[in-house]
């Protein structure tokens, strides 16, 4: 195998055919014929970065971003509407009655947690179908944006919504009872609830020892806190799983059509 074949494959995958032929293939050809390898590789990488920057700004790439974003937003809006219809209506009671559905565990941010990572693949497929001439780097950027959005949704936005819900419930309870009943302080409630924690707080909570909340009893751990550590770990694993799911969704979105073509050509 000759020198530069991997670079050639990379250039063909990421760049538009025209830029690959006019800019990168001459760089690789000169690299293959020159003894100064270091300068050749350096020239290739500089040319690649420049080509990628230009390809990302091309009209086809912008069309892919626009189409993929529109499809993504449409799916999220549809899912949020269904979620709102189910979770904020009498239907919610019916869903809770169905065993093993675990809708109750999804609380009020199912779309953000589950649908955002899963929507990346169909959105990318739609975008690539509507803008078939977009360079590979455009698809890669769109997939990366989806993964970051998924991480932000499950790591920060969904927990913030959960936190707001808990605070609202607390305040509603206090207002309704006129503070006649003593309840668990809000800070303690929020500290115990792993689903309401942002990713850094969740990692901190998973690594921290069980909380001792009673100053007079240094060795005592409340029953509610005993399993909090495990709950934090489970939630952390779930969020990592969601991150992996978003990456896989991105890979499917990027590769599915070419895989379909390969299968069709073979058959």
């Amino acid at each position, binding site marked *: 195998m*000759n020198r530069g074949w991997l670079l050639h494959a990379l250039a063909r995958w990421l760049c538009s055919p025209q830029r690959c032929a*006019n*800019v990168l293939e*001459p760089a690789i*050809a000169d690299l293959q*014929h020159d003894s100064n390898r270091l*300068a050749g590789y*350096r*020239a290739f990488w500089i040319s690649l970065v420049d080509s990628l920057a230009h390809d990302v700004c091309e009209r086809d790439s912008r069309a892919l971003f626009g189409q993929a974003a529109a499809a993504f937003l449409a799916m999220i809006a549809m899912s949020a509407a269904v979620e709102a219809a189910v979770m904020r209506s009498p239907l919610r009671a019916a869903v809770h009655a169905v065993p093993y559905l675990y809708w109750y565990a999804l609380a009020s941010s199912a779309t953000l947690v589950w649908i955002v990572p899963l929507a990346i693949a169909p959105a990318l497929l739609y975008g690539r179908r509507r803008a078939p001439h977009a360079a590979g780097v455009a698809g890669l950027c769109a997939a990366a944006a989806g993964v970051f959005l998924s991480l932000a949704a499950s790591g920060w936005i969904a927990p913030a919504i959960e936190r707001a819900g808990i605070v609202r419930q607390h305040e509603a309870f206090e207002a309704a009872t006129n503070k006649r009943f003593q309840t668990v302080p809000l800070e303690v409630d929020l500290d115990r609830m792993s689903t309401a924690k942002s990713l850094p707080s969740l990692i901190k909570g998973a690594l921290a020892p069980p909380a001792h909340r009673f100053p007079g009893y240094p060795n005592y751990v409340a029953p509610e806190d005993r399993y909090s550590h495990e709950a934090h770990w489970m939630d952390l694993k779930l969020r990592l799983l969601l991150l992996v799911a978003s990456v896989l969704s991105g890979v499917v979105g990027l590769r599915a059509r070419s895989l379909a073509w390969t299968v069709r050509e073979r058959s």
Partner: protein
Amino acid sequence: MKREFPHISRTERIILDLLVHDEELYGLQIVERSNGLVKRGTVYVTLGRMQEKGYVESRTEPPVPGAIGLPRRLYRPTAYGAAVLKAWTRMATALARLRPARGLS
């Protein structure tokens, strides 16, 4: 009809100048003959851009039996590119003549 004024950068001028004198060159040969004025990291990008502008045209070298790897690309100036270079050189000379001499009052 709106016509854009052809713009030519310093690197493009150097490359065109070399190509006008040497007829056909590889990217690597342009770097070598420019005595460090054209860097290897920018030559391919500049040549690609010049091709889009229509200043240069290229062809791949004829296949050599037993050769491995990609064929190298040879560049040569187009008639339009040569005309643009000529016009720019003439304009630069004319502008240089108009510049007032320094230190005289």
